[in-house]
């Protein structure tokens, strides 16, 4: 029942996005622009500053992710469809998980473009330890999106939601982003520092568990008017 509902919400969001391509286009455009601005500012005569790549990658994920989160819930605001979801006899945390999976999938697609782009402009060897790098990206994205999905849903009825979302989201997700940057940097080092990367990955995973547990626990209460 729980995962059936979550997948149903994910499938519905996917169907809407396939038709409109609104959020994906906007997220990709913003993420790519972000990387291009950094590339033009920092890369001099074909030489990128050392250790810039992980920071730029995670900044692009964080900023474009904020944009995607806002738009995902803006869609539920038209026609008050979130109310309709909450009124259904489905477990409300399942609705949260469905929306979270949608945001993570969207950011996953954005990362498919971002990682090669950052690798190209900043000469970063992202594919030396592909499995660890993939885990780091997935874990960091899930941690960021877990809190973001909760806050975006919570702020849906607030007039100043676009301002409040980053104000609330960034301070709380900063540990995940820092751990993501440090873990990614360890993997991009020559030679790759697997021990350090694994330690940062463990920290990100621990944050994921805490964030998701708290979000599942509080979603129903926070969504009740």
């Amino acid at each position, binding site marked *: 029942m729980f995962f059936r509902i979550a997948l149903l919400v994910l499938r519905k969001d996917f169907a809407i996005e396939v*038709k409109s391509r609104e959020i994906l286009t906007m997220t990709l455009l913003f993420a790519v622009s972000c990387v291009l601005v950094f590339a033009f500012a920092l890369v001099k005569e074909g030489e990128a500053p050392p250790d810039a790549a992980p920071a730029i990658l995670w900044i692009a994920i964080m900023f474009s992710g904020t944009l995607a989160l806002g738009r995902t819930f803006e869609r539920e605001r038209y*026609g008050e469809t979130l109310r309709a979801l909450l009124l259904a006899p489905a477990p409300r945390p399942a609705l949260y998980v469905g929306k979270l999976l949608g945001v993570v999938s969207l950011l996953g697609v954005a990362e498919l473009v971002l990682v090669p782009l950052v690798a190209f402009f900043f000469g970063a060897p992202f594919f030396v330890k592909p499995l660890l790098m993939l885990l780091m990206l997935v874990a960091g994205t899930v941690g960021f999106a877990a809190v973001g999905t909760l806050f975006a849903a919570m702020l849906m009825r607030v007039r100043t939601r676009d301002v409040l979302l980053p104000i609330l989201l960034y301070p709380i997700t900063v540990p995940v982003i820092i751990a993501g940057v440090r873990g990614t940097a360890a993997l991009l080092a020559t030679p790759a520092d697997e021990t350090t990367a694994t330690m940062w990955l463990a920290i990100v995973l621990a944050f994921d568990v805490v964030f998701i547990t708290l979000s599942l626990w509080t979603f129903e209460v926070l969504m009740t008017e």
Partner: protein
Amino acid sequence: MKDFESVQLNDVSRHFGRRRALARLSLTARAGDILGLLGPNGAGKSTLLGVLSTIVVPTTGEVTYGDRTARRWGAPLRRRIGLLAHELHLYAELTARQNLTFFAELYGLNPAAVVNAALERAGLVDRADDDVSGFSRGMRQRLALERALLHAPRLVLFDEPFTGLDDRSVAAVTDRLRALAADGAIVVVATHDLDLADGLVTRVALIRDGRLLADEPAAAGLRARYRAVVGN
């Protein structure tokens, strides 16, 4: 699951910050009733529907569905409630069929068994695979009404159900509401359209500034009664 025969609000108040939307309101709606919530804009009708639908939690007081509160019923109660709100709860980017299929699955229904019949009742069979964004307000309203009734709810809550409807559709909705009440549903309709409410509702609750001014059986001359109790 045993259905409830009545819904009772006991001394329900609801505040939004310092604004009082409902003030110590007590009211009962029974199976077979079409209860009209009548009052001017901002009277608290939509908040009251929100409270009845369990989406809005009262600041004080309680609502009982049969002999149990919403908290005691839990999620199964929501399977017995259908809400047609002023905002239509439809995804504009999806087709009429996709909308109905999604909500049918959300309520654990077999879409094949309910969606086509709902499209037929809404008069949208020919437009079933068109995006809702291209529909007129009346078409959306008819679709939203069927969406709200897909799961054959016991408690039917309608907020201004006649908005955007032409005369024929108004007649169809009116007949539908009467049929629902005849089948034993508890129907609550919030409206400020006294002409349409007159002759349709079987009880009236007159509300102003969140207060219940009168709760009585409907009788002829609803407009005059409304003017006398609520004012213009």
